[in-house]
């Protein structure tokens, strides 16, 4: 038997995670509506100050994406059983390839999650839409960054009894540059500045996180 190449293996792993998520439906049918409810709660707390809601809407969207997206990015890692983890190790697939497959699936899930919440945000907050073309770059970059950080934290927390709690605690501080960059892209456009430096920061976070996964995957597995 000749094992397929790493790209094919990562694709198979991502396909499996997406199939499992599609059948469980927790990320998009439970977490996304809950995120929508969270978006609704802010106006209830702040009041119907329309100019204020318009100005904070974009930022609140990214806060909700960050907080609930962490749960999406950690879900599969949290549901893996020790027996399934052991079996995957015995397939001979390199740990970095396994984490890449998981990160790819999480990226697609997070992108769908963001796209579900976006129209809800527009309806509730009516934010200025002048920065929307930039969202075509920001959405996938944030999704990828959050997915990779979630995958990394999931691998790090593997084997700990409190991994469901530990995961978000690890991801949220590391994901703050993503939140900052995503909100600052809109701010830059609103005030007529070029947002390239913030996009570059997003890309840098993604690349550093991906490198961290690739370089630490084997050690993380041995440690867990």
């Amino acid at each position, binding site marked *: 038997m000749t094992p397929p190449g790493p790209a094919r293996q990562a694709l198979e792993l991502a396909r499996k995670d997406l199939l499992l998520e599609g059948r469980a439906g927790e990320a998009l049918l439970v977490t996304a509506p809950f995120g929508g409810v969270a978006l609704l709660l802010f106006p209830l707390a702040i009041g119907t100050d329309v100019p204020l809601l318009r100005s904070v809407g974009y930022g609140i969207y990214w806060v909700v994406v960050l907080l609930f997206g962490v749960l999406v990015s950690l879900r599969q890692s949290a549901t893996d059983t*020790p*027996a399934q983890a*052991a079996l995957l190790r*015995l*397939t001979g697939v390199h740990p970095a390839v396994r984490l890449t497959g998981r990160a790819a699936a999480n990226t697609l899930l997070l992108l769908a999650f963001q796209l579900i919440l976006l129209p809800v945000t527009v309806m509730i907050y009516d934010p200025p839409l002048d920065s929307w073309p930039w969202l075509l770059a920001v959405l996938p970059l944030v999704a990828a960054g959050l997915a990779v950080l979630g995958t990394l934290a999931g691998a790090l927390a593997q084997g700990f009894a409190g991994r469901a709690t530990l995961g978000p605690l690890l991801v949220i501080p590391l994901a703050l540059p993503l939140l900052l960059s995503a909100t600052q892209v809109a701010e830059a456009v609103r005030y007529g500045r070029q947002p390239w430096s913030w996009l570059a920061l997003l890309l840098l976070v993604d690349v550093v996180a991906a490198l961290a996964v690739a370089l630490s995957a084997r050690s993380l597995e041995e440690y867990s």
Partner: protein
Amino acid sequence: MSPASRLPYDACRAGRQAHPDAVIELCGISVSVERTPVLRDLTLTVGAGEAVGVTGANGSGKSTLLRLLATLLSPAAGTGRALGSALGSRECERIRPHIGLIGHSPALYSRLTLAENLRFFCRLTGVDVSAVGAALDAVGLGRSADRPVDRCSQGMQRRAELARVILTKPTLLLLDEPHAGLDTGSAGLVDAIIDDVCERGGAAVVVSHDRARLDVAVDRVLDLRAGSLHDALPSATVVPGQGLR
């Protein structure tokens, strides 16, 4: 040294492969799990074509022994080799695809069907996907191929894991309570798979509380006590409820 040992001790201590045809060689191995010593100064050799059974009380370290042999745990002390690779070294990554492990808990994804589980495993490892149907037929699950795992009984899940072993043809087979949940007819399936691995020059280590089935399935039975392996008493001398005779 345990009487179960069949290994020249000096060669073993030096980390050399003392028996060229040995599939497993453990010498003075100690393993701790979360800082608790589980296996202590354990020595074992399993040759090509040999099936070894391991019995022992609950918590004696049987599953830990299987995880060590599967290269999923590293020894804290001592030396050991499985399929020619030193345990705890990077060489182990090379041999992992040749190890078939059926643990105490099933490693199936509950929201996938039995066939989807096996097809995923095949695609990941390069096994011919078209063989999945025949493997499921061989374990009597041909008609349940499209049933989700969470709607299958424990015995069906166990048989699906045996189908995975049939597909991958491992050289080293490690089974943890393989007869658990299986009906009388299916138990013979486990024996046939063990025989197949041994006939191909591989080896099997089978952990079980079912001594009667173990006597049929393996060549010799060892008892894991206080973290070390000892030759087990003949099963005829143990009478349930009456102790030793």
